[in-house]
């Protein structure tokens, strides 16, 4: 079970959080000029990397705030925790 360092509450167990899937997916627009292919890509296509993955987490059983996490999907090591809206940090 992961130990996630919530930027507002500190390190907490994974059961307190909800994973919101991949981060940094921008909604295409304006809506009347988006092709079906672009819209499908936005809705369904996701990265499934072996290695660093940027994802959103919400501390549902705590402060209930969203934030971003860079996590290694192989070692489960959490490489960075950064606020929503910030761009992905350089991690290795």
């Amino acid at each position: 079970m992961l130990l996630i360092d919530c930027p507002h509450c500190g390190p907490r167990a994974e059961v307190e959080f909800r994973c919101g899937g991949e981060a940094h997916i921008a909604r295409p627009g304006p809506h009347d000029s988006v092709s079906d292919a672009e819209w499908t890509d936005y809705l369904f296509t996701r990265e499934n990397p072996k290695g660093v993955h940027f994802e959103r987490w919400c501390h549902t059983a705590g402060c209930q705030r969203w934030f971003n996490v860079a996590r290694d999907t192989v070692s489960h090591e959490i490489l960075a925790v950064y606020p929503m809206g910030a761009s992905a940090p350089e991690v290795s």
Partner: protein
Amino acid sequence: MGGKRAPGGTTINRSKTVTFNWAGKTLSGYEGDTLASALIANGISTIGRSFKYHRPRGLIAAGLEEPNGIVQLERGAHTVPNVKATQVELYEGLIAGPVNAKPSVDFDLLAINSAFKRFIPAAFYYKTFMWPHWRLFEPSIRKAAGLGTAPEMRDPDRYEQRFAHVDVLIIGSGAAGLAAAEAASHLPGAERIMLVEADAEFGGGLLSLGTKIDGVEPMAWRNAMLERLHSAPNIQLLNRTMAFGFYDHGLVALHERLNDHVACNDRSGARQRIWKVRCGRVILATGAFERPMPFANNDLPGVMLASAAQTYAVRYAALPGNTIAVCANNDSAYLAAFALQDAGAQIAAIIDTRPDPSAKADTARALVSTAE
């Protein structure tokens, strides 16, 4: 074979006799015995039957690695199927019995399966029994398989869970675990230390060791170490607690048995507890399992791991047999042979598989020849 009670015993309390029931017979042991050691001391060697051919099975090990000593405990709502006899602490009035043997372990009707083993080999497809219809055979085939009986009543016990955060977790309280805990207690920054032991007694292998450690008897060394650990302010000691999982980011799951060693009517509070412990550092001092020697019929009663025989003899003063042959592929088997002889067994032979047995073998040979 037929075991008996020997003198000595490091963890049994001879001033307190405990009576218990095995397969309908009333037997007695001492406080500190496990069900397995008490059965050995009472001369009972066949304690189960194998899953398919119903071959007689005896105890092989003395700890949680025991594959044969699977028993059913208690009756009614308190019944627990498929417990290892080596992990059951004896208490007054304990009711235990074998599984998968009818009418008894000494005379099992389904042992007839052994006679037909040519026709029902491993991976035999039982649905071959299809003429005139599978359903005709299904009930008896299903009945022949399986081990213990599941309880039919609601579980009367309570269970609980607890969380903990520690700087250092030490799993196992043998010589290595105790030394590690002692060293960790002096570390700067180690404010919370936890030492867990699956057994009822702290000490692990020290409880059945035949050699001295730091020049003192192993039990004296253990007691002195435990005293120091008990007086250290930053150490929590948990016995009857087995670490069973090591998960991401230093999470270790523990299973603590709070009430399983108490007679059913005297139990109060939760029966068992799950711990989820987030650890800064984890030290595995879990020791090792001895591997059995492969040879024909090594599954039958009378064949036991050398380390297990040593544990039964030294720790529980339960001698598994009177005349014993020891099979060796390393020096530790000689220590087992010495311990068994000290407990009163006749060592008939030591069979060493090594081409060049070390000096210990000569000492052992001298010992055996003088005993004859």
